[in-house]
C-alpha cells in the first residue's frame, strides 16, 4: 500500500494537540511507516512553500489544531483546505474555539489595554502598543493584526471531520489514525470522530444520589469532594451531562475533578451552554423563583463554566457590544 500524505498544522493553539499526537508513543514508528509528512512545524523543517507547490487535493489527511485568530491563520486554513482531501478540525480550539475563545467575552481593545497599559510590571509611560507596520531606520517590518474575535476552523473553511478534546486523548488519536491508514470507511463528512456519542455521565462511575440534589452550588476552592459521588449531586459544577464521552474520564475519575466540557456537546445538542442551563434547572432542588434565584446566586461566572471551551461555536459566539 502506498503511504498516506499527511500534514499536521497549528493555528491559534497551544501546541498541546501536537504533544498529544506524540503521546501515541511507540506507535509514532507505525505512523512513520504509513505516512509521508509534508508539514509539521513543531517537529519538522517543511515550509509553506512546499505546501503551496503541492497539487490541489494532494494531501490525504490534514490535522489542523488551533482556532482562527488572525489573517495568517485564515490564509493557511484556506491553503490546507485546497491541498487536502480530508481536513480535520483537531482538538477543542479548531472544533469550537477552545480556551482562546474565552477572549470573546471581551473586546480586543480591552485585551490590548490590559496587556500593554495596565499590567503592574509594565514600564510604558507613553502607552506604546504594537503596530502592524513599523518603520525602522532601515525599513519597514510587519506583524499581523488580531481579529476582533476568535473563530473555530469551520467558520472560515469547510471541515470534513471533527476530533474533539483539549487535547484529544492519544488513544482516540490512534483510533482515528489507524482507521484512516487502514482505509476503513469513515462516517459521513461533518461527523465528529475519535469520540463517543453519549454524554460523559453515561460513562462515569461516580454514584448518583438523587435526581434533585442541588440546593446550592459549591466551589472546589472550599470543598473537598467525596471521590465516589457525582459532582453535580454534591453541588459542584460538572459539565458531564452536556459533554461528549471519549476522554476516558481523566478528570472526573482519574483526577477527582469535575468536567469542564472540552470534548464538546454530545450528538443532537445544539448549544452546550444552553443545554447545561437546562440540566442545572432539572437538577435544582427548588421550585419557587426565589429559591431558584437564591441557588443560582451561589454560582459565579456561569458563562465561564458553561462555555469554557465552546464560545466560538456557541449561540453567543462573542461579546457583541
Amino acid at each position, binding site marked *: 500500500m502506498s503511504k498516506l500524505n499527511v500534514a499536521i498544522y497549528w493555528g491559534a493553539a497551544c501546541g498541546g494537540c501536537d504533544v498529544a499526537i506524540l503521546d501515541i508513543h511507540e506507535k509514532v514508528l507505525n505512523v512513520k511507516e504509513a505516512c509521508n509528512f509534508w508539514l509539521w512545524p513543531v517537529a519538522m523543517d517543511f515550509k509553506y512553500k512546499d505546501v503551496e507547490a503541492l497539487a490541489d487535493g494532494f494531501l490525504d489527511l490534514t490535522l489542523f489544531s488551533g482556532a482562527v485568530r488572525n489573517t495568517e491563520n485564515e490564509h493557511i486554513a484556506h491553503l490546507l483546505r485546497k491541498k487536502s482531501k480530508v481536513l480535520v478540525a483537531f482538538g477543542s480550539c479548531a472544533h469550537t474555539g477552545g480556551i482562546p475563545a474565552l477572549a470573546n467575552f471581551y473586546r480586543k481593545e480591552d485585551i490590548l489595554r490590559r496587556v500593554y497599559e495596565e499590567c503592574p510590571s509594565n514600564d510604558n509611560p507613553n502607552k506604546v502598543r504594537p503596530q502592524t507596520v513599523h518603520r525602522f531606520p532601515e525599513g519597514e517590518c510587519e506583524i499581523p493584526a488580531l481579529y476582533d474575535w476568535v473563530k473555530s476552523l469551520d467558520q472560515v473553511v469547510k471541515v470534513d471531520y471533527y476530533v474533539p478534546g483539549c487535547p484529544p486523548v492519544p488513544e482516540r488519536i490512534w483510533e482515528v489514525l489507524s482507521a484512516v491508514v487502514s482505509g476503513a470507511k469513515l462516517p459521513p463528512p461533518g461527523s465528529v470522530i475519535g469520540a463517543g456519542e453519549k454524554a460523559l455521565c453515561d460513562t462515569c462511575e461516580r454514584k448518583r444520589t438523587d435526581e434533585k440534589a442541588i440546593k446550592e452550588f459549591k466551589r472546589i476552592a472550599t470543598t473537598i469532594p467525596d471521590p465516589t459521588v457525582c459532582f453535580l449531586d454534591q453541588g459542584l459544577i460538572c459539565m458531564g451531562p452536556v459533554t461528549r464521552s471519549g476522554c476516558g474520564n481523566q478528570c472526573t475519575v482519574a483526577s477527582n475533578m469535575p468536567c469542564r466540557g472540552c470534548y464538546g456537546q454530545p450528538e443532537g445538542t445544539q448549544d452546550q451552554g444552553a443545554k447545561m442551563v437546562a440540566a442545572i434547572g432539572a437538577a435544582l432542588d427548588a421550585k419557587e423563583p426565589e429559591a431558584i434565584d437564591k441557588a443560582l446566586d451561589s454560582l459565579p*461566572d456561569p458563562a465561564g463554566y458553561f462555555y469554557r471551551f465552546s464560545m466560538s461555536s456557541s449561540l453567543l459566539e462573542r461579546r457583541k457590544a
Partner: protein
Amino acid sequence: MKTITIDPITRLEGHGKITIFLSDEGEVKNTYFQIPELRGFEKFLEGRPVEEAPRIVPRICGVCPACHHMASGKAVDAVYGVTPPPAARKLRELFFMGEYIHSHVAHFYALSGPDFVMGPGAEKAKRHILGIVDKVGLEIGSKVITFRKYGHEIMKAVGGKCQHPVYNVPGGVSRPITAEQRTQVEKMAVECVELAKFTIKLFEDIVLKNKAYMDIVTGPAYQLKVHNMGLVDDKNRVNFYDGKVRVVDTTGKELAKYAPAEYLQNVAEHVEPYTYLKFPYLKKFGWKGMSEGQESGMYRASPLSRLNAADGMATPLAQAEYERFFATVGKPCNLTLATHWARVIELLYACERAVELSQDPEILSPDVRILPTRTPHDGVGIVEAQRGTLTHHYTTDENGIITKANLIVGTTNNNAAITLSIQKAAAALIQKGKPVTEEVLNMIEMAFRAFDPCFSCATHSLPGHFPMEVTFVQSDGEVLDILRRS
C-alpha cells in the same frame, strides 16, 4: 533580485520573524526580531473564579502546561493564604518532575537534537526526529520514546492527567496517591535516571568530543554576557518548584534574591511598537535597549542561567555533572549553546529528584489538602518553567473572583537576550562576499533554539501559524532577500 524563503522556521514552540538589514557591501546593518501575536490571558482570566485559573492557564502552552498549572496553583494558594500539607507539596513537585522529563527530552532530541545529530547543514528532509531514529537505529529511538513517555506516565500516575493538568486545588491537590501508583512512579523514575545518564553520554560523544561542534559552541557567534536568573532552595541549589528567585550578575555575584511577592520590585517590562512581546529587564539597571554587559538590565532565564545563578544541584549525580560543566566552561558561563548541556544536567536532576520524592513515605499520606478559610485577595506564584522563571499574579474580590491577572512567562524573560543572540549570530555568521546558505540560516536559528523558546507561552499567544522569516533589506530599503528555508 534573488529571493530565498524560510517559511515557517521550525522546531520551536510558537512563532516569530527575523528581519536582517544588509548594507550594499553585504554586511549586516541591523537585525530585528518580531513576535506577531498575543492571546490576552491577562484579560480573559478576569471574572473567572480563581480556583479555575490552574485549569485555564495550562492552555497557554501545551508543551509545558504543568509549569503554568504549578505557578497558578501556588498563586491561588497565596490568594487564599493557605499552605498545602507536606504530602501535597511533595506530590506537586513529583508531578512537575514528570513534565521536566517530558519537556527536556522533547527539546533535546526532537527540537534541538537534529542540529547536532544530523548536523546544522543536513538536508531538511532528514533534519528531524524521525531522521534521528533512522540514523541511530530503532533501539535507541525506542529508548528516547520511552524516556519521554515515562515523563507523562509519571504525571498521570501522580495527578490523574498529564495534559492539561487538573491536579492543583487551593491548599493542595485533588487526590492522594495510592501505594500501587507510587510503586509505578518509582520504577519509572529509576529507569529515567539511567536514560538521563545515557543522554548525557550521548551529548558528550556527539558534541563535547567533536572539535568542529565545540568550535561552534565556544565561537564568537553564540556568546552573550548578561545577568542570570533562577529559582534556588535555601542552600542556593537549583530548584524548579519552590524557593526564591536569585539573580547573579555577569561576574557571578549575587544581585538579588527575592520571594515571589517581591517580583515587582525586581523586574519590569518594556514595550516596543514593533512586536507583541514585552521585554522584561532588571529594575536595578533599567532598560538599556539591546545591549549586554554588567550595566544592562538584560538577563537570561534558562537552564544555563539556572546553573549560573545557583551554587549547585541538590542531587548527587547532577551535582557531579554541574561541577564538570563549570570546570569545562567556567562560571558564569556565557556560551549560549552550552544551554543544551545545562539542559541535560537539569534532566538528570529531575530524574534523580523524582526518585527521591517517589521513595519518600510521606507522599502516601491521605492528607493532601487544607481548605482555605481566609478571605481571598492577592497572590503571586513562581516556579521555574523549563524555559525560564514563570510568574503568575492574581488579585481577586472577596469572593475569589479574579479582578486582575499578570503573567511574566519563561520565554518572555529572554526576549531581549534572544533578540541580541540572533543579532550577534547574524552579524558573525553572515560575511560579505560569501553566500548566505541554508546552513548559515539554520545556524542563526540555533541562536534562539538553544533557549528552547516557547513564543506561545511568551505572548500567551498562538504558535506556529505565522511564519518566521528572515528578510534581507539593502540600505536603500529595497528588499534583497526574503530567506525562508529552501
